[in-house]
């Protein structure tokens, strides 16, 4: 008998680290228009290949091509562009406000604007999102007042969360936006539970769960897929694969699986991958998945292939773990630029109008910011009272909390 060879331990690592030349040659990109568009009632086993391709609409020449193209009018696309530009301007101002010490923390969307902005457009009033911290486009595109978002970020006197939540952990039942936890993946199974409830009650509303590539490793991701599959819950399960979980590249969560979307296959859940930087493609896939849920055909898993251009948060420095120029090398480009160029090609937009819109949007955002700041920022001006801290732990304040509030002298 031969001696067994010593085992070796495997830890995946990204192809390039700081100082290296960015390299995305291993990212397999389908040609725009290439991937088929099956009917929504297709048997999941017939479309297993969609978990490995990338559905794309906008090609390199800025044309919208293929079976997923043509679902949105010029006016709708222009509105979509405006939503993404607004989110980008909002991010820029809030990022700066954090640097100026007006709040403790911020998380921007740079590069991922199309995902939440286009998805929101596929929903109906009454549907419910269970988002992570990088889907503020759901609120911007859903008509939530920017003033409330800023007041939440500043934890000021108008903060709808009364200063209890970290900046960007918004909540708006009215706008179909479930309270953000900050604990990862917990909301994924909650989305499934909400969808189960809607089915139990014979309602017509559906839910959407959101998760990042890194958090798919959490047990609650598995819980969500098991429950969604078992009860055929009317839910769209979104995975935003932005390549990075803080400093950890997506290969650590993905392991040997080909794609994140492929995780759905073992559960019999139809799984699609889409170019997350392609507004019309995101919309088309979202619409497809939402329709499946609405028609009681069950859950759909959607992986948005995108790239986190900015830092994870204002507390993060990506130059410590990835090449500075990596985002420039990202092969799927910038979502704002791509939609802008497409609209110019269609003859409904121009460089000048774009510049003008940028300036307009920025001044609108600045005006709202000024108004928000009259209601206080984290360390100055009016803010929620210390007394508020004791409210809302329970529906009625129990005696022990009343005593503590008294002891606290508030």
């Amino acid at each position, binding site marked *: 008998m031969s001696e067994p060879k010593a085992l070796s331990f495997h830890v995946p690592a990204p192809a390039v680290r700081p100082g290296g030349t960015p390299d995305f040659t291993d990212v397999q990109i389908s040609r725009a228009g290439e991937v088929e568009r099956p009917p929504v009632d297709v048997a999941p086993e017939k479309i297993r290949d969609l978990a490995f391709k990338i559905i794309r609409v906008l090609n390199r020449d800025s044309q919208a091509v293929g079976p997923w193209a043509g679902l949105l009018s010029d006016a709708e696309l222009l509105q979509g562009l405006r939503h993404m530009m607004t989110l980008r301007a909002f991010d820029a101002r809030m990022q700066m406000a954090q640097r100026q010490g007006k709040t403790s923390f911020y998380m921007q969307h740079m590069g991922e604007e199309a995902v939440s902005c286009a998805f929101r457009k596929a929903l109906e009033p009454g549907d419910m999102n269970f988002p992570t911290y990088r889907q503020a486009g759901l609120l911007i595109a859903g008509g939530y007042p920017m003033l409330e978002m800023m007041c939440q970020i500043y934890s000021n006197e108008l903060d709808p969360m009364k200063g209890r*939540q970290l900046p960007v952990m918004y909540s708006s039942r009215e706008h179909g936006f479930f309270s953000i936890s900050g*604990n990862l993946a917990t909301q*994924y*199974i909650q989305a499934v539970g909400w969808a189960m*409830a809607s089915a139990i009650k014979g309602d017509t509303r559906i839910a959407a769960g959101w998760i990042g590539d890194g958090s798919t490793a959490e047990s*609650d991701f598995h*819980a969500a897929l098991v429950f969604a599959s078992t009860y055929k819950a009317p839910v769209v399960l979104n995975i935003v694969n932005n390549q990075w979980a803080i400093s950890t590249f997506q290969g650590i969560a993905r392991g040997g699986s080909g794609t994140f979307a492929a995780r759905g296959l073992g559960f019999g859940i139809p799984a699609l991958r889409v170019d997350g930087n392609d507004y019309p493609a995101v919309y088309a896939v979202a619409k497809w998945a939402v329709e499946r849920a609405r028609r009681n055909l069950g859950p759909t898993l959607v992986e948005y292939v995108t790239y986190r251009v900015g830092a994870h948060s204002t507390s993060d420095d990506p130059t410590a773990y990835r090449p500075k120029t990596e985002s420039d090398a990202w092969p799927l480009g910038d979502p704002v630029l791509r939609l802008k160029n497409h609209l110019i090609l269609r003859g409904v937009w121009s460089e000048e109008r774009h510049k003008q819109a940028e300036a307009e949007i920025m001044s609108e955002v600045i005006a709202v910011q000024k108004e928000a700041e009259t209601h206080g920022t984290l360390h100055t001006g009016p803010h929620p009272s210390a007394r508020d801290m004791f409210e*809302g732990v329970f*529906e009625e304040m129990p*005696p022990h909390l009343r005593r503590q509030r008294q002891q606290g002298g508030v």
Partner: protein
Amino acid sequence: MPRKTMVEAIRDAMDVCMKRDDNVVVFGEDVGYFGGVFRCTQGLQQKYGSNRVFDTPINESGIVGAAVGMAAYGLRPCVEIQFADYMYPAYDQIVSEAARLRYRSNGQFTAPIVVRMPTGGGIFGGQTHSQSPEALFTHVSGLKTVVPSNPYDAKGLLISAIEDNDPVIFLEPKRLYNGPFDGHHERPVTPWARHPQGEVPDGHYTVPLGKAAIRREGSAVTVLAYGTMVYVAETAAQETGVDAEVIDLRTLLPYDLETIVASVKKTGRCVVVHEATLTSGYGAELSALVQENCFYNLEAPVMRVTGWDTPYPHAQEWDYFPGPARIGRALKAVMEA
């Protein structure tokens, strides 16, 4: 008055609530067709359909996480974790989600859910079917924690819990499911049918959360207990002849400080009893509360009688369990101090 076991009383509470409110749903492992491993949900699926009573995959985080989502929708889920020992995968959903949802969303979303789970030992369940994790819940802001000790209370408290608009952890002492237990494991079990608290009215009634009950009046020492330990403490008082006042806390959070303080001020002595491990247990909180509120009335240090700080053993179950002999020794010691 009809007499019921604690299992029947718990089932009856769910039945009453499901009949009154279409938004009450019941689910968990084995709870649907089969009716639960302790039979607490037997017959409910036949009565209310599998839309409202159903089996789940073996995933406690999924059970509670789905319940939180359903509650956000507007349902009132009453879910079962098969044994309290299995709740740990659900702990994140309980602590970070259910307990804080009202607070963090400023009331936009709430989690009116009940998480039922059999707790405690005394059935030779070993370390994975015997734990008493109540302190892991009472330590969390935003949760209510309930431990009934008899069928009447179990039904009334569970109805209160299901109707409550905040998340409630409902710990069911499994040793009490079929009868009160005096701690003498060598003796045959007395069925609830022969016990006055086995009398359970039909229909809707509530036992309010946050109110303790005095089970045995006495003047010499106050015993603070809940769940299985209530009867064991009563037995210890009888056997030692110490005139102990036994208080059944019923709800651990919010707790009934008024009843506790009034009793200790009267007796001047206090023994705290629970089956859970000693260190950082709920008894530490009780002991601190008594010290803070009754210091000048105390004739002796507050004593604790609890499970040892070991995992719950199998063969040594009755060496671990704080039975009447150990409680009796504490009663005597506190009287002599």
